[in-house]
């Protein structure tokens, strides 16, 4: 039965590290804006295309 104790500790450890990751990401402003990054990621590639065309 002692294996259970180790398992519980391990599972709580993992759970807490995920909670820590969540808190960290909120603190870093990860959830402040859930729209702009989705547009930004598309725009960057667009810019490269434009500059390529300009250099051609």
């Amino acid at each position: 039965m002692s294996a259970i104790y180790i398992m519980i500790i391990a599972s709580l450890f993992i759970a807490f590290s995920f909670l820590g990751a969540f808190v960290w990401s909120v603190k870093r402003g990860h959830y402040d804006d859930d729209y702009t990054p989705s547009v930004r990621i598309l725009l960057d590639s667009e810019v490269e295309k434009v500059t390529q065309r300009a250099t051609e």
Partner: protein
Amino acid sequence: MDTNDLIVEKVIQAKHTCYHCGEECTDDVIRFDERDFCCDGCSTVYDLLKENDLCGYYNIDGAQGISLDKSYFQGKYDYLDLPEIAEKILEFTDGRLSRVNWLVPKMHCSSCIWLLEQLHRLNPAIRSSVVNFPEKRVRITYDSQLIRLSEIAALITKAGYEPYISLNDVEGKHIKKWNRTRLYKIGIAGFAFGNIMMLSFPEYFNLGRASSDQNLRQMFGFLNFGLSLPVFFYCAADFFKSAFSALKGKFINIDAPIALALTCIFAISLYQIISQTGPGYFDSLSGAVFFMLIGRFFQDKTYAGISFERDYKSYFPVAVSVLNNGIEIRKPITELNPEDHIIVRNEELIPADSVLLSPRAMIDYSFVSGEAEPLERKKGDTIYAGGKQTGPAIELNILRKVSQSHLTQLWNNDAFTKEKEDQNQTLAIRINKYFSMIVLMIASVTFLIWLFILKNPETAFRAFTTSLLVACPCALLLSSTFTNGNLLALFGKHRFYPKNAYAIERLSHIDTVVFDKTGTITQSNDADVEFVGKELSDGELVIIKTIAMQSSHPLSRMIVKKLTGTTASRRILADYAETGGAGIRANWGKRVIKLGSAGWVGLSVQNEGIHNASRVYISFDSEIRGYFIIKSKYRADLAETITALQNTGFQTYLLSGDKPTDKAILEPIFGNESHLLFEQKPEEKLLFIKNLQVEQNRNVLMVGDGLNDAGALRQSNVGLAISDDINNFSPSCDAIVEGKQLGKLPAYINLAKSGQQIIKFSFAISLLYNLFGLSFAVAGKLSPVFAAILMPVSSITIVAFTSLASNMAARKLIKN
């Protein structure tokens, strides 16, 4: 005849669309770099982008640009360099790197995001710029030794994105932002909920009864207790705080029974763990908190970009030009003193009561009084704050400080100090009051019966807790928060933005609708213009347009707008002269053309008669050709909307600050002459609403737009601000609606009403669950696994029902 040649050349030209903003070029076509532009503003922005190799802007969303604002002039932002202002506007500075977070209301598409994030290419001193699109903000980090704040403001203004800096920013009163704590709370509650459920699994299935497992059971119990501590003391803190403050104010709000239930569950669970009599109900506790937090989050995070709490400070400029010994400097308006000598340019707001020093001014008070036509003021006249100068720059001498000006006095009215949200009034609260009482009674009666009649204290405690737990008003809270949250989102989709759930509930009780006139039921910047008289030839229309374009008088602008099909000539006018209050006169070749009042063109005033619209007479070489009738244009579906409201039993009123010019048109629409009130001052509007509420016991919806309605909007049960640009200006109100959507007003009210019905219905559903659970709990037979399943299932049913029902109601009621 050079005029005729000119016309032929112009008529052949096809339609042009502006390369920058994509609008049709109506006035004039500017050819620049082999492209068409509708105005100088657009070509200037294009020039700036081209120079910096930023034309990728046009490849993203096509021609979506914004023209350079006409009110911009060199030195407009100089005040930002004043240390005391910069200190309040800057988000961060270490003397070298500085950061500013500006609201840019004009951003509207992905091109805007792209351009605003490329600012470093416009000026290398800007290190980075990051856009938050939902909040319409851009955060700019720059090297403060290489570029001044005023230069950045000027730069982004020249790119078409004027930052919105209001007096509120400078006074340091920031609008309360949606904060991150709520996310932490949801995260922690969810984490605890999941882990406690996992640790409770043996209990659910009645495992681990062997004596060798007793240590394990105990450890699981303590772990659950430990995990629930942050849930109870941190995540649920808001419920306790709100319940406590309500109790202090001697009333019960929706959080009071929740706080009581949570405390009971926590205490009983703690007792069970310590006395080793049971596993406790920590899973249900953290689950309930988790679901309720999600419900509140859903309800709150609807629109970050819209502000409902605007007062005069949001409208006023931050700084004005002050003449100091002949030198023009920018000074913050809070520091304006009597006897200061200020310059106010075209379209600028006059910040404080002052005396006119220039010979003549045309002041547009539509913003303050609702009066559509600008008033003429002569040298020495007193001009009240809130007026807008139309025409050339004027000089003024300040009479009173900004805070003591006539306009700002309105904000001292009681209506602005009291809160509208009367917590006792909401539906959820009213139902909950009885509900909590009944649940408490059932639980206590059960407890007493088990304790004294059946003599079983163990089961007595268990039955008491489980009754409270199962009948916890959480499900009731969920039904109202999720319904209202969903309704807020649905209203938003249809361009109607209520401030919060309370506003929706008050909207459902409305029985009287009061409209403002100018800007609310009329369309600002648009008018019906009609020509009466001898028909004008194309050539003459060109002449009229060319002359009218020289004037900034609103009537001239309306005529220019009417003559959209005609392209103005670029000819320089000889002897152009504008006489205030009369009209304009110009020479066109040998012809003398006059535009203006009847007297101006030489018509005897007796002929003018009484009419309900402005007229602009035209004469060519003293031959009077006729006149333009300029009537304010009402919103297209006004009559149908009012009729629809009246047919469903609403009383309708019109409350206007304007002269009763359109009485004849409006009377048949509103049906009753006594329901039309004209020439109402802002204070009188407020009083009128108050009288309706107090003497006739009506629930009033006030629909208005400008500052002049601010008092009435505030006093009414629901203040609805009309705005043609949601992110622009609207006074303090409970809801904002787009001008074009006004016709849907009856539908919005009906949706709010069906929202209330949905809440009642979902109450009924959760009651059924509660009765079902209670019957087991009272009998003392509710097992933990049953409670653990019943609680989430009832929550999920409620959430699914409310969102389905409100979506269906919205689809049925609001048709596009």
